[in-house]
């Protein structure tokens, strides 16, 4: 990991400090909106790809209204891609048979793979957008105010922090390795074991020092976020508008309706 990738990791925190209409919305409202979105996306059946498509509208609108640059966000979405591909790649092999979509015969396996990929893309993007427009600390505070147990929230927050601690240590270790192994591409397999062991020990050490710094400043297991501003009418309107849209997208097959309307108009 080089400096750029470490910088990339912290980009979400930078983006969370922007001041846009979306950033100003209450964290609890944004969290509930995101959860509703995730719920609606995963509620669609494995062969329902068409009705999913209007939901792309949500990340696109938030991305644009929050002035979040698309490229760094999509890069992060790609980090999750190997996992999605790993899980979904077997579908075309294991699931046989065909389904008719708009008169076209498609393999069931490929259709479920496509559906899984689209759902993953939407859910990962929505989660990243939540962090990029709210900040992890505010998301944690919102979770606490919704009654999520303290330990769970703390675990989430510290794991998020540990990623950057790990990133910094990886960066230093790789730099030290590269300086003593000129001409080598990557790290030799023989060094993997000791390097991972060293990384673990160093990050545990570093995490312990950070924890000590927290304890020295009165941390006793409860994370206290910033000001708990009240939910305004605009916040409510924001949440309810999206809620209404998600409900419509879930109940009606919007692309099919639009298609019927268009064809009806032509006929």
């Amino acid at each position, binding site marked *: 990991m080089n400096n750029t990738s470490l910088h990339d990791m*912290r980009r979400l*925190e*930078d983006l*969370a*400090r922007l001041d846009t209409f979306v950033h100003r919305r209450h964290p609890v409202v944004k969290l509930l909106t995101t959860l509703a979105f995730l719920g609606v996306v995963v509620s669609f059946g494995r062969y329902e790809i068409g009705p999913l498509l209007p939901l792309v509208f949500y990340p696109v609108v938030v991305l644009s209204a929050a002035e979040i640059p698309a490229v760094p966000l999509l890069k992060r979405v790609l980090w999750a891609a190997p996992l999605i591909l790993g899980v979904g790649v077997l579908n075309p092999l294991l699931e046989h048979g065909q389904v008719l979509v708009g008169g076209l015969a498609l393999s069931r396996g490929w259709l479920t793979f496509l559906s899984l990929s689209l759902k993953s893309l939407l859910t990962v993007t929505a989660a990243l957008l939540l962090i990029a427009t709210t*900040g*992890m*600390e505010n998301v944690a505070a919102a979770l606490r105010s919704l009654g999520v147990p303290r330990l769970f929230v703390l675990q989430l927050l510290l794991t998020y*922090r540990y990623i950057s601690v790990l990133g*910094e240590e990886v960066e230093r270790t790789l730099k030290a390795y590269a300086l003593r192994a000129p001409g080598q591409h990557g790290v030799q397999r023989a060094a993997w074991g000791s390097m991972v062991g060293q990384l673990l020990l160093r990050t545990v050490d*570093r995490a312990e*020092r*950070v924890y*000590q*710094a*927290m*304890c*020295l*400043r*009165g*941390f*006793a297991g*409860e994370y*206290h*976020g*910033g*000001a*708990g501003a009240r939910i305004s009418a605009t916040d409510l309107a924001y949440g309810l508008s999206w809620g209404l849209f998600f409900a419509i997208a879930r109940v009606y097959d919007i692309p099919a309706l639009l298609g019927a309307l268009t064809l009806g108009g032509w006929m």
Partner: protein
Amino acid sequence: MSHHLVEAIDVYYAYPDGHHALQGISFRISHGESVAVVGANGAGKSTLLMLLLGLMFPARGEVRVGDALVTRKTLPLVRKAMGMVLQDPDDQLFMPTVFDDVAFGPRNAGLDEREVARHAESALQAVGISHLRGRAPFKLSGGEKRAASIATVLSMLPDILVMDEPTAGLDPRARRMVKDLLRGFSHTKIIASHDLELVWELCERTLVLTQGTVAADGPTRQVLGDAALMERCGLEVPYGLRACPQCGFTPATGRPTANA
């Protein structure tokens, strides 16, 4: 409670690997004193600071802050009285913005958000970095990070400031800035450092540790000027206290030495 008193009485500490870091340390620091803790690497400086703040507990002996014996039960009291600035500011700054980091302590103390903001702003002003309040800590320069670390402690209004190598890794200008900052504080200060020029300028009393014991405890001028003691403890007399071999002039005292 007299928060300003710090006392170690015959303190011993050994790490789990068997290394005896402290072997019978005793001292007493009174209100308003600026005390330096110096010693070669491995002399026990950082271990001592951690014991003072209850990050570890002595195997034998006791540490007192004010009237309180440092134990698990008294930790909130001890840490309210004493604030510690860690050696590496990156360990101390873990929140997304400088303001959130400085507000972390007051928020944990249960203050309402208006009070939190007042404490944080006042600490930021004290170290002259109010303009950095919205910045991400990892984007600051070394000197700014150090100032922010000090602010995170000041916002908790401690009576005693404990610092581990406050000028480590800083360029000359940032080092000067930190020194000026520390000079302006009226707190009781305990500073562990290899920077003997800083010790000379800021601390009227110096404790010299060697192999986990106190080799000397006295006025800084006397302790740092003792070349034999410094040599024995793996240290060196600061340049400012050495006489010029040509003219015999000693910069720190502004006088020619007697034997020049």
